[in-house]
């Protein structure tokens, strides 16, 4: 599905990603851990194609196609979707209208999908206008359900969400990644989903809901320590990122510490 080769990315003059290599197979969900400022969000934004992120070296191959410099809408039309952490408000644009447009010409049952994320009463509101943290997440999920991407990028799906909403968000994320609409369980059992996911998480709550296959930790613009995501989470919960950094310093010979990370990225 996705192959990232030696990806270097700058924000302005500053190099934030320093050679990322990553392969995500069809149907696989990959979890990205890492302290603030390590470059996780930068990786997602670069994959989606945001303007402020400049690829200086390397390649992004998606479904066999080089999309390193493809415009954002082309990536979206090829099947990459993203759940935004802090989406902008667009005045005068009704949520229902945007959800419809996410279908990219396909007929979208806006009402039906909205019911699934308990969002019917928001359809008439301007998109993101005064939405709470949980409401933003549900709105993002709703748009992704209409868009039906093959590769979904989630930027901290649990941030700002209360427990009650978390179950709904988690379940919806699972359904999106399983590529299944609710209904016939027989069909579910027989299908193998081809939808892939790349999820940034701090708390790991999302792991209680989605079937994540692999995970990796990002430090200072580089990926390391690939393992089962649950094991990574346990390790971070018990020892914190400090412990990881010591381990990494020993491996690379570099001296790393948390304070060296740039909060902005």
């Amino acid at each position, binding site marked *: 599905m996705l192959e990232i080769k030696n990806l270097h990315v700058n924000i302005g003059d500053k190099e934030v990603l320093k050679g990322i290599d990553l392969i995500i197979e069809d149907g696989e969900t990959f979890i990205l851990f890492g302290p603030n400022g390590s470059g996780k969000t930068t990786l997602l934004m670069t994959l*989606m*194609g*945001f*303007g402020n992120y400049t690829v200086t070296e390397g390649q992004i191959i998606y479904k066999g196609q080089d999309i390193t410099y493809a*415009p*954002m*809408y082309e990536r*979206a*039309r090829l099947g990459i*979707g*993203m759940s*935004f952490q802090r*989406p*902008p408000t*667009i*005045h*005068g*644009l009704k949520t229902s209208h*945007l959800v419809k*447009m*996410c279908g*990219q010409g396909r007929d979208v049952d806006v009402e039906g999908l909205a019911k699934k994320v308990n969002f019917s009463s928001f359809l008439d509101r*301007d998109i993101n206008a005064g939405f709470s943290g949980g409401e933003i997440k549900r709105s993002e999920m709703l*748009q992704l359900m209409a*868009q039906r991407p093959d590769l979904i990028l989630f930027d901290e799906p649990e941030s700002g969400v209360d427990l009650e909403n978390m179950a709904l968000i988690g379940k919806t994320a699972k359904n999106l990644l399983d590529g299944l609409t609710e209904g016939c369980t027989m069909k579910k059992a027989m299908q193998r989903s081809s939808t892939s996911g790349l999820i940034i998480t701090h708390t790991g709550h999302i792991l209680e809901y989605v079937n994540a296959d692999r995970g990796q930790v990002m430090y200072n613009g580089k990926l390391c320590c690939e393992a089962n995501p649950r094991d990574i989470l346990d390790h971070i919960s018990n020892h914190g990122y400090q412990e990881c950094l010591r381990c990494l310093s020993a491996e690379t010979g570099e001296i790393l510490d948390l304070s060296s990370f740039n909060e902005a990225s």
Partner: protein
Amino acid sequence: MKKIDLSQYRADGATEAAIEDFSGFSAEDKERLLFAGIDVENPSESGAFMHLNHSGVHCKTKREGLEVMDIKSALEEFDGLPDYYWQLVDKDKDEFTKAAHDNLHGGYFIRAKAGAKITEPVQSCLFIDKAGISQNVHNIVVVEEGAELHIISGCATAHGAKESAHLGISEFYVHKGGKLTFTMIHNWSEDTAVRPRSAGVLEEDAVFLSNYVLLKPVKDLQMYPKLTLKGENSVARFNSVIVAPEGSYIDCGNRIEMQAPNTRAEIIARTLTTGGTIINRGYIGADAVPARGHLECKGLILGGGRIHAIPELDSDQDGVELSHEAAVGKIAQEEIEYLMARGLDEDEATSTIVRGFLNVDMEGLPKELQEAIEQQIDELDAGDAM
């Protein structure tokens, strides 16, 4: 703003015969009229009026309690309308008011009698289809006690009506407990000069909702309608959507004076320039409390042009609540990228955001008219504007 020289327009001679039904207009004219809010294929259930060039040509009333008359007939029948004619606008204010006073061509007198609820909008149209003329009209709208009235006033020029001028006096009277919704749509041309002079007064518990739409080019337009809230509990609201392509010069705004307690005022303007000039004024003043007023002037500059927002609030009252929000800006890159991440290309994303920006909720618009407005906004996108 260049000075308008009235002597270059013919103010006499373009008299027209009465028009019983509108089906005789060419398809082109029908479209011009539809984009000015007049759907000639679906005549209003309430009443209709048309003034063409220098003559009133059509006048119909279909509802009990509703009067739709040519102003000249009304002046004759009601002894010069002493309570209403030139009571709110000063005839010596400028050369345009003087011209309309000295050489009146027509205009409408529309009155909803006490208690009458005229829910379906009355269609009124001021149309110019001859080149080189000036049109001098005077309109009076009266909503009597407890009555309700909605007027859609469309002003347009035909394709061939080059170098024309429109001078319009309008006076609005909303009596106790009355409600007036007044939707005005302008569809002029690149070489039309337009000088409306309007004012209104509201008594106790009266409501005035004004919608104004200008999406097409106009050479030079200047207007600043004023509403006075004289009665307690009266409410006035202005919504305006204004677009200025290259070559348009628009100086417009709204003024509300709150002179009684428990009054409310709201002025919302959305302006967009793609090369023209817009001066967007707004004034809310309060001489009594409690009074609540809010003023919003928001402008987008898209590829050129100028927007000058002048919001004003004025009061000497302890306890008054007035606020304003003014902005002149561009479309945020963040918003464009959000939509591009959903598969819209940059042009589609831009036009979606602009449509949202111009989408001010206007109460009570018929479906055909709403669609005509949306179509025009879509056509803005299709052109070189963005």
